[in-house]
Protein backbone atom coordinates (compact mmCIF):
# COMPACT_ATOMS: atom_id res chain seq x y z
CA UNK A 1 0.00 0.00 0.00
CA UNK A 2 1.25 3.45 -0.92
CA UNK A 3 1.96 5.22 2.38
CA UNK A 4 1.43 8.69 0.88
CA UNK A 5 -1.86 7.79 -0.76
CA UNK A 6 -4.75 9.98 0.36
CA UNK A 7 -7.16 7.33 -0.90
CA UNK A 8 -6.11 3.70 -0.73
CA UNK A 9 -8.54 1.06 -1.94
CA UNK A 10 -7.32 -2.52 -1.98
CA UNK A 11 -9.44 -5.36 -3.29
CA UNK A 12 -12.74 -3.60 -2.68
CA UNK A 13 -15.74 -5.77 -3.38
CA UNK A 14 -19.32 -4.65 -2.90
CA UNK A 15 -22.39 -6.63 -3.83
CA UNK A 16 -26.09 -5.89 -3.76
CA UNK A 17 -28.80 -8.47 -3.38
CA UNK A 18 -31.59 -8.41 -5.90
CA UNK A 19 -34.70 -10.36 -6.71
CA UNK A 20 -36.71 -12.85 -4.69
CA UNK A 21 -33.73 -15.20 -4.36
CA UNK A 22 -31.47 -12.32 -3.29
CA UNK A 23 -29.02 -13.08 -6.04
CA UNK A 24 -25.77 -11.15 -5.48
CA UNK A 25 -24.94 -8.50 -8.06
CA UNK A 26 -21.38 -7.22 -8.05
CA UNK A 27 -21.33 -3.41 -7.99
CA UNK A 28 -17.56 -3.38 -7.45
CA UNK A 29 -15.28 -6.38 -7.72
CA UNK A 30 -11.75 -6.55 -6.37
CA UNK A 31 -11.06 -2.88 -7.09
CA UNK A 32 -7.63 -1.55 -6.22
CA UNK A 33 -6.92 2.14 -6.51
CA UNK A 34 -4.47 4.56 -4.90
CA UNK A 35 -4.73 8.34 -5.13
CA UNK A 36 -1.48 10.15 -4.27
CA UNK A 37 -1.53 13.44 -2.40
CA UNK A 38 -1.89 16.50 -4.63
CA UNK A 39 -3.11 14.65 -7.72
CA UNK A 40 -6.33 14.66 -9.70
CA UNK A 41 -7.58 11.21 -10.57
CA UNK A 42 -10.64 10.60 -12.69
CA UNK A 43 -12.75 7.53 -12.46
CA UNK A 44 -14.57 6.97 -15.75
CA UNK A 45 -16.95 4.29 -16.86
CA UNK A 46 -20.47 3.71 -18.12
CA UNK A 47 -23.58 3.95 -15.95
CA UNK A 48 -23.64 1.14 -13.42
CA UNK A 49 -19.89 0.58 -13.64
CA UNK A 50 -19.45 1.04 -9.89
CA UNK A 51 -18.18 4.63 -9.71
CA UNK A 52 -20.80 5.94 -7.29
CA UNK A 53 -20.62 2.76 -5.20
CA UNK A 54 -16.88 3.32 -4.87
CA UNK A 55 -17.44 6.94 -3.85
CA UNK A 56 -20.14 6.01 -1.33
CA UNK A 57 -17.76 3.46 0.16
CA UNK A 58 -15.10 6.17 0.48
CA UNK A 59 -17.63 8.30 2.36
CA UNK A 60 -18.54 5.44 4.68
CA UNK A 61 -22.14 5.27 3.48
CA UNK A 62 -21.57 1.71 2.29
CA UNK A 63 -19.55 -0.95 4.08
CA UNK A 64 -17.20 -3.06 1.93
CA UNK A 65 -18.05 -6.75 1.61
CA UNK A 66 -14.36 -7.44 1.11
CA UNK A 67 -11.19 -5.41 0.80
CA UNK A 68 -9.78 -2.41 2.59
CA UNK A 69 -10.71 1.23 2.10
CA UNK A 70 -8.59 3.92 3.70
CA UNK A 71 -8.87 7.69 3.46
CA UNK A 72 -5.94 9.57 4.98
CA UNK A 73 -4.88 6.19 6.36
CA UNK A 74 -8.10 5.64 8.30
CA UNK A 75 -11.32 3.80 7.70
CA UNK A 76 -13.99 6.23 6.43
CA UNK A 77 -15.83 7.89 9.30
CA UNK A 78 -16.63 11.24 10.86
CA UNK A 79 -13.01 11.95 11.89
CA UNK A 80 -11.83 11.53 8.28
CA UNK A 81 -14.79 13.32 6.70
CA UNK A 82 -13.74 16.55 8.41
CA UNK A 83 -10.98 16.70 5.76
CA UNK A 84 -13.17 15.70 2.81
CA UNK A 85 -15.42 17.77 0.57
CA UNK A 86 -18.02 15.88 -1.45
CA UNK A 87 -20.27 16.88 -4.31
CA UNK A 88 -22.88 14.41 -5.51
CA UNK A 89 -23.78 13.90 -9.17
CA UNK A 90 -26.98 15.85 -8.62
CA UNK A 91 -26.86 18.04 -5.55
CA UNK A 92 -30.00 17.23 -3.61
CA UNK A 93 -30.71 19.66 -0.82
CA UNK A 94 -33.56 21.17 1.15
CA UNK A 95 -35.72 23.33 -1.12
CA UNK A 96 -36.92 25.54 1.73
CA UNK A 97 -33.38 26.79 2.45
CA UNK A 98 -31.85 29.82 0.79
CA UNK A 99 -28.36 29.60 -0.75
CA UNK A 100 -26.77 31.11 2.35
CA UNK A 101 -28.82 28.83 4.64
CA UNK A 102 -27.59 25.76 2.76
CA UNK A 103 -23.98 26.82 3.15
CA UNK A 104 -24.51 27.71 6.81
CA UNK A 105 -26.10 24.33 7.51
CA UNK A 106 -23.41 22.23 5.84
CA UNK A 107 -20.65 24.52 7.10
CA UNK A 108 -21.79 24.22 10.71
CA UNK A 109 -22.08 20.44 10.29
CA UNK A 110 -18.45 20.47 9.11
CA UNK A 111 -17.39 22.26 12.28
CA UNK A 112 -17.16 25.85 10.99
CA UNK A 113 -18.09 28.58 13.44
CA UNK A 114 -20.47 31.43 12.54
CA UNK A 115 -17.38 33.66 12.35
CA UNK A 116 -15.72 31.26 9.85
CA UNK A 117 -18.89 31.21 7.79
CA UNK A 118 -19.12 34.99 7.69
CA UNK A 119 -15.57 35.01 6.35
CA UNK A 120 -15.85 32.11 3.85
CA UNK A 121 -19.35 32.29 2.39
CA UNK A 122 -19.34 35.66 0.53
CA UNK A 123 -16.12 35.02 -1.44
CA UNK A 124 -17.26 31.49 -2.26
CA UNK A 125 -20.60 32.74 -3.60
CA UNK A 126 -18.69 35.30 -5.66
CA UNK A 127 -16.32 32.65 -6.98
CA UNK A 128 -19.17 30.42 -8.11
CA UNK A 129 -21.32 33.19 -9.52
CA UNK A 130 -24.02 32.79 -6.87
CA UNK A 131 -23.62 36.15 -5.10
CA UNK A 132 -26.87 37.58 -6.44
CA UNK A 133 -28.97 34.60 -5.36
CA UNK A 134 -27.77 34.39 -1.77
CA UNK A 135 -31.25 34.80 -0.32
CA UNK A 136 -33.17 32.89 -2.97
CA UNK A 137 -34.73 29.52 -2.00
CA UNK A 138 -32.74 26.75 -3.65
CA UNK A 139 -36.00 25.07 -4.68
CA UNK A 140 -36.25 27.71 -7.41
CA UNK A 141 -32.74 27.08 -8.78
CA UNK A 142 -31.92 25.79 -12.25
CA UNK A 143 -29.90 22.57 -12.49
CA UNK A 144 -26.71 24.46 -13.25
CA UNK A 145 -27.10 26.76 -10.24
CA UNK A 146 -27.84 23.78 -8.02
CA UNK A 147 -24.67 22.07 -9.23
CA UNK A 148 -22.59 25.16 -8.53
CA UNK A 149 -24.10 25.36 -5.07
CA UNK A 150 -23.18 21.69 -4.64
CA UNK A 151 -19.57 22.52 -5.45
CA UNK A 152 -19.70 25.52 -3.09
CA UNK A 153 -20.74 23.36 -0.14
CA UNK A 154 -17.96 20.88 -0.98
CA UNK A 155 -15.33 23.66 -0.99
CA UNK A 156 -16.73 25.54 2.01
CA UNK A 157 -14.60 24.04 4.78
CA UNK A 158 -11.44 24.08 2.65
CA UNK A 159 -11.02 20.28 2.60
CA UNK A 160 -7.76 18.54 1.73
CA UNK A 161 -9.55 15.96 -0.41
CA UNK A 162 -12.34 16.70 -2.86
CA UNK A 163 -14.54 13.85 -4.03
CA UNK A 164 -16.62 15.02 -6.97
CA UNK A 165 -19.23 12.79 -8.58
CA UNK A 166 -19.82 14.05 -12.13
CA UNK A 167 -18.99 17.67 -11.22
CA UNK A 168 -19.80 19.07 -14.68
CA UNK A 169 -23.00 17.12 -15.18
CA UNK A 170 -25.88 19.36 -16.26
CA UNK A 171 -23.77 22.49 -16.67
CA UNK A 172 -23.72 24.80 -19.67
CA UNK A 173 -20.31 25.41 -21.36
CA UNK A 174 -19.69 28.50 -19.20
CA UNK A 175 -20.52 26.65 -16.01
CA UNK A 176 -18.38 23.69 -17.08
CA UNK A 177 -15.43 25.93 -17.70
CA UNK A 178 -15.89 27.60 -14.32
CA UNK A 179 -16.01 24.27 -12.52
CA UNK A 180 -12.97 22.92 -14.38
CA UNK A 181 -11.05 26.11 -13.61
CA UNK A 182 -11.93 25.76 -9.93
CA UNK A 183 -10.82 22.13 -9.93
CA UNK A 184 -7.46 23.14 -11.41
CA UNK A 185 -7.11 25.99 -8.93
CA UNK A 186 -7.76 23.60 -6.06
CA UNK A 187 -5.11 21.28 -7.45
CA UNK A 188 -2.66 24.17 -7.63
CA UNK A 189 -3.42 24.83 -3.96
CA UNK A 190 -2.21 21.32 -3.21
CA UNK A 191 -5.59 19.64 -2.86
CA UNK A 192 -6.16 16.04 -3.86
CA UNK A 193 -9.13 15.48 -6.15
CA UNK A 194 -10.93 12.26 -6.97
CA UNK A 195 -13.67 12.71 -9.51
CA UNK A 196 -15.92 10.60 -11.63
CA UNK A 197 -17.02 11.75 -15.05
CA UNK A 198 -18.56 10.70 -18.33
CA UNK A 199 -17.09 13.66 -20.18
CA UNK A 200 -13.73 12.45 -21.44
CA UNK A 201 -12.65 15.86 -22.77
CA UNK A 202 -13.03 17.29 -19.26
CA UNK A 203 -10.96 14.44 -17.87
CA UNK A 204 -8.24 14.99 -20.47
CA UNK A 205 -8.13 18.71 -19.70
CA UNK A 206 -8.15 18.45 -15.94
CA UNK A 207 -6.78 15.21 -14.60
CA UNK A 208 -3.37 13.66 -14.02
CA UNK A 209 -4.48 10.06 -14.15
CA UNK A 210 -7.50 8.12 -15.29
CA UNK A 211 -8.96 4.87 -14.04
CA UNK A 212 -11.54 3.21 -16.25
CA UNK A 213 -14.04 1.03 -14.44
CA UNK A 214 -16.27 -1.43 -16.17
CA UNK A 215 -18.63 -3.88 -14.47
CA UNK A 216 -17.09 -3.07 -11.11
CA UNK A 217 -13.50 -3.82 -12.14
CA UNK A 218 -10.59 -1.64 -13.21
CA UNK A 219 -10.43 -2.04 -16.97
CA UNK A 220 -7.57 0.36 -17.63
CA UNK A 221 -5.47 2.93 -15.77
CA UNK A 222 -2.81 5.32 -17.03
CA UNK A 223 -1.49 8.85 -16.86
CA UNK A 224 -3.35 11.38 -18.99
CA UNK A 225 -0.05 12.62 -20.45
CA UNK A 226 0.32 9.32 -22.30
CA UNK A 227 -2.70 10.09 -24.52
CA UNK A 228 -3.18 12.44 -27.48
CA UNK A 229 -0.58 13.81 -29.88
CA UNK A 230 3.09 12.83 -29.72
CA UNK A 231 4.98 15.93 -30.88
CA UNK A 232 8.24 13.99 -31.11
CA UNK A 233 7.00 12.09 -34.16
CA UNK A 234 5.25 13.37 -37.29
CA UNK A 235 3.00 11.93 -39.97
CA UNK A 236 3.29 13.09 -43.59
CA UNK A 237 0.51 12.03 -45.92
CA UNK A 238 1.59 11.57 -49.54
CA UNK A 239 -0.07 10.42 -52.76
CA UNK A 240 1.67 9.12 -55.93
CA UNK A 241 3.85 6.93 -53.70
CA UNK A 242 5.68 4.03 -55.40
CA UNK A 243 8.32 1.54 -54.25
CA UNK A 244 10.79 3.66 -56.24
CA UNK A 245 9.99 6.64 -54.03
CA UNK A 246 11.22 4.73 -51.00
CA UNK A 247 14.50 3.94 -52.76
CA UNK A 248 15.00 7.61 -53.61
CA UNK A 249 14.67 8.52 -49.92
CA UNK A 250 17.04 5.82 -48.73
CA UNK A 251 19.39 8.29 -47.02
CA UNK A 252 16.59 9.49 -44.66
CA UNK A 253 15.23 7.83 -41.52
CA UNK A 254 11.48 7.15 -41.75
CA UNK A 255 8.78 4.49 -41.64
CA UNK A 256 5.92 3.99 -44.06
CA UNK A 257 2.46 3.04 -42.88
CA UNK A 258 -0.88 2.39 -44.55
CA UNK A 259 0.71 2.05 -48.00
CA UNK A 260 -2.04 1.37 -50.59
CA UNK A 261 -3.07 2.54 -54.05
CA UNK A 262 -0.31 5.12 -54.32
CA UNK A 263 -1.08 6.68 -50.96
CA UNK A 264 1.10 6.35 -47.85
CA UNK A 265 1.71 7.80 -44.43
CA UNK A 266 5.37 8.57 -43.78
CA UNK A 267 6.34 8.65 -40.11
CA UNK A 268 9.50 10.46 -39.05
CA UNK A 269 11.05 12.19 -36.05
CA UNK A 270 10.95 15.95 -35.54
CA UNK A 271 14.68 16.07 -36.29
CA UNK A 272 14.24 14.35 -39.67
CA UNK A 273 11.03 16.12 -40.71
CA UNK A 274 12.49 19.18 -42.42
CA UNK A 275 15.02 17.28 -44.55
CA UNK A 276 12.48 14.65 -45.48
CA UNK A 277 9.92 17.24 -46.61
CA UNK A 278 12.61 18.91 -48.67
CA UNK A 279 13.47 15.59 -50.33
CA UNK A 280 9.79 14.79 -50.95
CA UNK A 281 9.27 18.04 -52.85
CA UNK A 282 11.88 16.84 -55.32
CA UNK A 283 9.95 13.59 -55.94
CA UNK A 284 6.90 13.08 -58.20
CA UNK A 285 4.56 12.80 -55.17
CA UNK A 286 1.94 15.11 -53.71
CA UNK A 287 2.30 16.05 -50.06
CA UNK A 288 -0.98 16.10 -48.15
CA UNK A 289 -1.27 16.78 -44.44
CA UNK A 290 1.70 17.09 -42.08
CA UNK A 291 0.73 16.61 -38.43
CA UNK A 292 2.08 15.35 -35.10
CA UNK A 293 1.74 11.61 -34.82
CA UNK A 294 -1.54 10.71 -33.17
CA UNK A 295 -1.36 8.04 -30.53
CA UNK A 296 -4.41 6.57 -28.84
CA UNK A 297 -6.70 9.17 -27.25
CA UNK A 298 -8.57 8.72 -24.03
CA UNK A 299 -11.68 8.09 -26.08
CA UNK A 300 -9.90 5.33 -28.06
CA UNK A 301 -8.85 3.68 -24.84
CA UNK A 302 -12.34 4.06 -23.38
CA UNK A 303 -13.92 2.46 -26.42
CA UNK A 304 -11.33 -0.30 -26.39
CA UNK A 305 -11.45 -1.18 -22.69
CA UNK A 306 -14.92 -0.19 -21.60
CA UNK A 307 -17.17 -0.40 -24.61
CA UNK A 308 -15.22 -3.24 -26.19
CA UNK A 309 -15.12 -1.51 -29.62
Amino acid at each position, binding site marked *: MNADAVIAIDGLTKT*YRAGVRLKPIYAVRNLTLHVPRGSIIACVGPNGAGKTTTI*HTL*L*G*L*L*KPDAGIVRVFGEAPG*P*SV*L*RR*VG*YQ*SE*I*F*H*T*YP*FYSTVDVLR*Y*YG*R*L*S*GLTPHDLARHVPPLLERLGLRDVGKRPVGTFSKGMTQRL*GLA*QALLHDPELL*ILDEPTSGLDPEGRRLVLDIIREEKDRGKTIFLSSHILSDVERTCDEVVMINKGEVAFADRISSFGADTRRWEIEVSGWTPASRALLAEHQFDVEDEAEGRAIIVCTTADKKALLHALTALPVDIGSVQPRRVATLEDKYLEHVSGV
Partner: protein
Amino acid sequence: MTTRILLIARNAFRGIMSRRALYIWAGAVLLMFFRAAPQIVAGFRGPERVREFMLSGAVAGSLEVWAFLCLAAAIFLGAGSVATELTTRTIVTVMARPVHRWELLVGKWLGVSAFAMVTLAIGVVLAYGLGSYVGVDVDRLTLVILREALAQSIVAIVLYSGVAVVLGSFGSWVIGAGVTVLLAFLPVLVNELKAIDDSPNWQRVGITLDWMTPDGYVSYYPRLNKVPFPGTPQRPAPPAVPQREDTRDLHRPLYASLAYAALYFLAGCAAFTRRNINLTSG
Protein backbone atom coordinates in the same frame (compact mmCIF):
# COMPACT_ATOMS: atom_id res chain seq x y z
CA MET B 1 -21.71 17.07 18.97
CA THR B 2 -24.52 19.10 20.58
CA THR B 3 -24.24 21.70 17.82
CA ARG B 4 -24.65 19.10 15.09
CA ILE B 5 -27.63 17.47 16.82
CA LEU B 6 -29.33 20.83 17.31
CA LEU B 7 -28.62 21.80 13.70
CA ILE B 8 -30.22 18.60 12.45
CA ALA B 9 -33.15 19.05 14.86
CA ARG B 10 -33.70 22.60 13.67
CA ASN B 11 -33.45 21.44 10.07
CA ALA B 12 -36.07 18.73 10.70
CA PHE B 13 -38.34 21.21 12.49
CA ARG B 14 -37.97 23.77 9.73
CA GLY B 15 -38.60 21.16 7.05
CA ILE B 16 -41.89 20.17 8.71
CA MET B 17 -42.87 23.80 9.23
CA SER B 18 -42.18 24.68 5.62
CA ARG B 19 -44.18 21.90 4.06
CA ARG B 20 -46.60 20.07 6.33
CA ALA B 21 -47.30 22.17 9.39
CA LEU B 22 -50.17 24.15 7.94
CA TYR B 23 -51.92 21.01 6.70
CA ILE B 24 -51.52 19.34 10.07
CA TRP B 25 -52.77 22.35 11.99
CA ALA B 26 -55.65 22.91 9.60
CA GLY B 27 -56.61 19.24 9.93
CA ALA B 28 -56.38 19.43 13.72
CA VAL B 29 -58.57 22.55 13.86
CA LEU B 30 -61.14 20.84 11.63
CA LEU B 31 -61.13 17.71 13.79
CA MET B 32 -61.39 19.87 16.91
CA PHE B 33 -64.33 21.67 15.35
CA PHE B 34 -66.17 18.51 14.33
CA ARG B 35 -65.55 16.97 17.74
CA ALA B 36 -66.68 20.02 19.73
CA ALA B 37 -69.38 21.58 17.57
CA PRO B 38 -72.21 19.07 18.14
CA GLN B 39 -71.74 19.17 21.92
CA ILE B 40 -71.53 22.97 21.97
CA VAL B 41 -74.71 23.27 19.88
CA ALA B 42 -76.48 20.67 22.03
CA GLY B 43 -75.23 22.41 25.17
CA PHE B 44 -76.52 25.83 24.17
CA ARG B 45 -79.84 24.48 22.90
CA GLY B 46 -80.40 22.02 25.72
CA PRO B 47 -81.72 22.63 29.17
CA GLU B 48 -79.62 24.52 31.66
CA ARG B 49 -78.55 21.42 33.60
CA VAL B 50 -77.20 19.71 30.45
CA ARG B 51 -75.26 22.75 29.29
CA GLU B 52 -72.38 22.54 31.71
CA PHE B 53 -71.84 18.83 31.01
CA MET B 54 -71.95 19.29 27.25
CA LEU B 55 -69.68 22.31 27.11
CA SER B 56 -67.15 20.80 29.48
CA GLY B 57 -67.23 17.60 27.41
CA ALA B 58 -66.74 19.58 24.20
CA VAL B 59 -63.56 21.18 25.50
CA ALA B 60 -62.17 17.92 26.91
CA GLY B 61 -63.08 16.02 23.76
CA SER B 62 -61.57 18.55 21.38
CA LEU B 63 -58.34 18.54 23.35
CA GLU B 64 -58.29 14.74 23.28
CA VAL B 65 -58.70 14.73 19.50
CA TRP B 66 -55.97 17.35 19.13
CA ALA B 67 -53.56 15.40 21.34
CA PHE B 68 -54.27 12.22 19.39
CA LEU B 69 -53.49 14.02 16.16
CA CYS B 70 -50.22 15.28 17.67
CA LEU B 71 -49.29 11.70 18.44
CA ALA B 72 -50.24 10.56 14.94
CA ALA B 73 -48.22 13.43 13.45
CA ALA B 74 -45.22 12.49 15.61
CA ILE B 75 -45.40 8.90 14.36
CA PHE B 76 -45.83 9.68 10.67
CA LEU B 77 -43.38 12.61 10.57
CA GLY B 78 -40.88 10.59 12.60
CA ALA B 79 -41.14 7.62 10.25
CA GLY B 80 -40.69 9.95 7.27
CA SER B 81 -37.83 12.00 8.67
CA VAL B 82 -34.91 9.75 7.67
CA ALA B 83 -36.87 7.79 5.05
CA THR B 84 -37.51 11.03 3.13
CA GLU B 85 -33.82 11.92 3.29
CA LEU B 86 -33.05 8.54 1.74
CA THR B 87 -35.63 9.05 -1.00
CA THR B 88 -34.61 12.62 -1.81
CA ARG B 89 -30.91 11.68 -1.39
CA THR B 90 -30.21 14.66 0.83
CA ILE B 91 -28.77 12.23 3.37
CA VAL B 92 -25.64 11.72 1.24
CA THR B 93 -24.40 15.29 1.61
CA VAL B 94 -25.22 15.26 5.34
CA MET B 95 -23.46 11.96 6.01
CA ALA B 96 -20.47 13.10 3.93
CA ARG B 97 -19.85 15.53 6.83
CA PRO B 98 -18.32 14.59 10.17
CA VAL B 99 -21.72 13.55 11.48
CA HIS B 100 -22.23 10.33 13.43
CA ARG B 101 -25.25 8.38 12.30
CA TRP B 102 -26.73 8.37 15.79
CA GLU B 103 -26.47 12.18 15.80
CA LEU B 104 -28.66 12.25 12.70
CA LEU B 105 -31.27 10.06 14.37
CA VAL B 106 -31.24 12.04 17.64
CA GLY B 107 -31.51 15.32 15.72
CA LYS B 108 -34.47 14.07 13.70
CA TRP B 109 -36.11 12.73 16.87
CA LEU B 110 -35.71 16.05 18.64
CA GLY B 111 -37.00 18.03 15.66
CA VAL B 112 -40.09 15.87 15.18
CA SER B 113 -40.84 15.76 18.93
CA ALA B 114 -40.43 19.53 19.18
CA PHE B 115 -42.91 20.05 16.35
CA ALA B 116 -45.44 17.66 17.93
CA MET B 117 -45.07 19.40 21.30
CA VAL B 118 -45.46 22.87 19.79
CA THR B 119 -48.60 21.59 18.08
CA LEU B 120 -49.84 20.18 21.40
CA ALA B 121 -49.21 23.54 23.07
CA ILE B 122 -51.22 25.27 20.33
CA GLY B 123 -54.03 22.81 21.00
CA VAL B 124 -53.99 23.58 24.72
CA VAL B 125 -54.17 27.31 23.99
CA LEU B 126 -57.05 26.78 21.53
CA ALA B 127 -58.89 24.52 23.99
CA TYR B 128 -58.40 27.07 26.75
CA GLY B 129 -59.73 29.77 24.43
CA LEU B 130 -62.70 27.58 23.53
CA GLY B 131 -63.35 26.84 27.21
CA SER B 132 -63.24 30.52 28.09
CA TYR B 133 -65.52 31.38 25.15
CA VAL B 134 -68.22 28.89 26.12
CA GLY B 135 -67.79 29.62 29.82
CA VAL B 136 -66.28 26.37 31.14
CA ASP B 137 -64.94 26.75 34.63
CA VAL B 138 -61.24 25.89 34.90
CA ASP B 139 -60.32 25.19 38.49
CA ARG B 140 -57.20 23.86 40.10
CA LEU B 141 -58.27 20.24 39.89
CA THR B 142 -58.79 20.55 36.14
CA LEU B 143 -55.32 21.96 35.77
CA VAL B 144 -53.84 19.06 37.72
CA ILE B 145 -55.65 16.56 35.51
CA LEU B 146 -54.60 18.53 32.44
CA ARG B 147 -51.00 18.38 33.60
CA GLU B 148 -51.20 14.59 33.90
CA ALA B 149 -52.92 14.28 30.53
CA LEU B 150 -50.27 16.42 28.86
CA ALA B 151 -47.51 14.40 30.52
CA GLN B 152 -49.06 11.25 29.02
CA SER B 153 -49.19 12.89 25.60
CA ILE B 154 -45.64 14.20 25.77
CA VAL B 155 -44.20 10.85 26.84
CA ALA B 156 -46.19 9.10 24.10
CA ILE B 157 -44.88 11.61 21.53
CA VAL B 158 -41.29 11.06 22.69
CA LEU B 159 -41.66 7.27 22.74
CA TYR B 160 -43.47 6.71 19.47
CA SER B 161 -41.68 9.40 17.45
CA GLY B 162 -38.35 7.86 18.55
CA VAL B 163 -39.47 4.40 17.50
CA ALA B 164 -40.81 5.77 14.21
CA VAL B 165 -37.55 7.62 13.45
CA VAL B 166 -35.38 4.52 13.90
CA LEU B 167 -37.80 2.25 12.03
CA GLY B 168 -38.11 4.79 9.21
CA SER B 169 -34.31 4.83 8.88
CA PHE B 170 -34.57 1.36 7.31
CA GLY B 171 -35.89 3.08 4.20
CA SER B 172 -39.69 2.89 4.24
CA TRP B 173 -41.77 5.41 6.15
CA VAL B 174 -44.88 3.29 5.53
CA ILE B 175 -43.39 0.28 7.30
CA GLY B 176 -41.86 2.53 9.99
CA ALA B 177 -45.16 4.20 10.75
CA GLY B 178 -47.11 0.96 10.47
CA VAL B 179 -44.94 -0.93 12.94
CA THR B 180 -45.00 2.02 15.35
CA VAL B 181 -48.79 2.19 15.24
CA LEU B 182 -48.84 -1.57 15.83
CA LEU B 183 -46.60 -1.07 18.85
CA ALA B 184 -48.97 1.58 20.19
CA PHE B 185 -51.90 -0.83 19.95
CA LEU B 186 -49.97 -3.90 21.11
CA PRO B 187 -51.01 -3.57 24.79
CA VAL B 188 -54.59 -4.40 23.79
CA LEU B 189 -53.39 -7.61 22.12
CA VAL B 190 -51.05 -8.34 25.02
CA ASN B 191 -53.91 -8.17 27.50
CA GLU B 192 -56.00 -10.46 25.32
CA LEU B 193 -53.17 -12.99 25.07
CA LYS B 194 -52.53 -12.91 28.78
CA ALA B 195 -56.20 -13.55 29.41
CA ILE B 196 -56.26 -16.83 27.44
CA ASP B 197 -56.52 -19.33 30.27
CA ASP B 198 -56.54 -22.57 28.26
CA SER B 199 -53.34 -21.92 26.30
CA PRO B 200 -50.19 -21.45 28.39
CA ASN B 201 -48.16 -20.88 25.23
CA TRP B 202 -50.21 -17.88 24.15
CA GLN B 203 -50.09 -16.62 27.72
CA ARG B 204 -46.30 -16.86 27.62
CA VAL B 205 -46.26 -14.92 24.34
CA GLY B 206 -48.47 -12.30 25.96
CA ILE B 207 -46.23 -12.07 29.02
CA THR B 208 -43.11 -11.81 26.85
CA LEU B 209 -44.65 -9.10 24.69
CA ASP B 210 -45.81 -7.32 27.82
CA TRP B 211 -42.26 -7.36 29.07
CA MET B 212 -40.83 -6.19 25.76
CA THR B 213 -43.28 -3.40 25.00
CA PRO B 214 -44.40 -0.32 26.90
CA ASP B 215 -47.92 0.32 28.08
CA GLY B 216 -49.90 1.87 25.30
CA TYR B 217 -51.15 5.40 25.09
CA VAL B 218 -53.75 6.22 27.74
CA SER B 219 -55.77 9.37 27.23
CA TYR B 220 -56.58 11.28 30.41
CA TYR B 221 -58.40 14.07 28.61
CA PRO B 222 -61.96 12.72 29.17
CA ARG B 223 -61.30 13.13 32.89
CA LEU B 224 -61.14 16.86 32.33
CA ASN B 225 -64.94 16.76 32.11
CA LYS B 226 -65.72 16.37 35.78
CA VAL B 227 -69.34 17.50 35.48
CA PRO B 228 -71.73 14.53 36.04
CA PHE B 229 -74.28 13.76 33.34
CA PRO B 230 -77.69 15.11 34.44
CA GLY B 231 -79.92 12.38 35.89
CA THR B 232 -77.10 10.17 37.04
CA PRO B 233 -76.67 9.74 40.78
CA GLN B 234 -74.77 12.62 42.30
CA ARG B 235 -71.08 11.96 42.22
CA PRO B 236 -69.21 12.20 45.44
CA ALA B 237 -67.45 15.46 46.04
CA PRO B 238 -64.46 15.99 43.76
CA PRO B 239 -61.34 14.54 45.25
CA ALA B 240 -58.78 16.84 46.66
CA VAL B 241 -55.87 17.86 44.48
CA PRO B 242 -53.70 14.73 44.16
CA GLN B 243 -50.76 14.73 46.48
CA ARG B 244 -47.27 13.65 45.52
CA GLU B 245 -47.84 10.10 46.79
CA ASP B 246 -51.03 9.80 44.73
CA THR B 247 -49.36 10.64 41.46
CA ARG B 248 -46.43 8.27 41.99
CA ASP B 249 -48.36 5.27 40.62
CA LEU B 250 -49.62 7.45 37.81
CA HIS B 251 -46.08 8.42 36.81
CA ARG B 252 -44.54 4.97 36.95
CA PRO B 253 -45.77 3.96 33.45
CA LEU B 254 -44.47 7.27 32.13
CA TYR B 255 -40.96 6.57 33.41
CA ALA B 256 -41.22 3.03 32.05
CA SER B 257 -42.25 4.40 28.66
CA LEU B 258 -39.30 6.79 28.65
CA ALA B 259 -36.98 3.89 29.49
CA TYR B 260 -38.46 1.85 26.63
CA ALA B 261 -38.00 4.85 24.32
CA ALA B 262 -34.32 5.07 25.29
CA LEU B 263 -33.80 1.32 24.81
CA TYR B 264 -35.53 1.13 21.46
CA PHE B 265 -33.70 4.21 20.27
CA LEU B 266 -30.30 2.87 21.31
CA ALA B 267 -31.01 -0.40 19.50
CA GLY B 268 -32.12 1.56 16.41
CA CYS B 269 -28.97 3.71 16.48
CA ALA B 270 -26.77 0.61 16.75
CA ALA B 271 -28.53 -0.99 13.77
CA PHE B 272 -28.39 2.21 11.69
CA THR B 273 -24.68 2.66 12.42
CA ARG B 274 -23.80 -0.84 11.25
CA ARG B 275 -25.80 -1.00 8.06
CA ASN B 276 -25.30 0.39 4.55
CA ILE B 277 -27.08 3.60 3.68
CA ASN B 278 -28.83 2.48 0.53
CA LEU B 279 -30.67 5.23 -1.25
CA THR B 280 -34.25 4.38 -2.06
CA SER B 281 -36.27 5.54 -5.02
CA GLY B 282 -39.42 6.34 -3.14
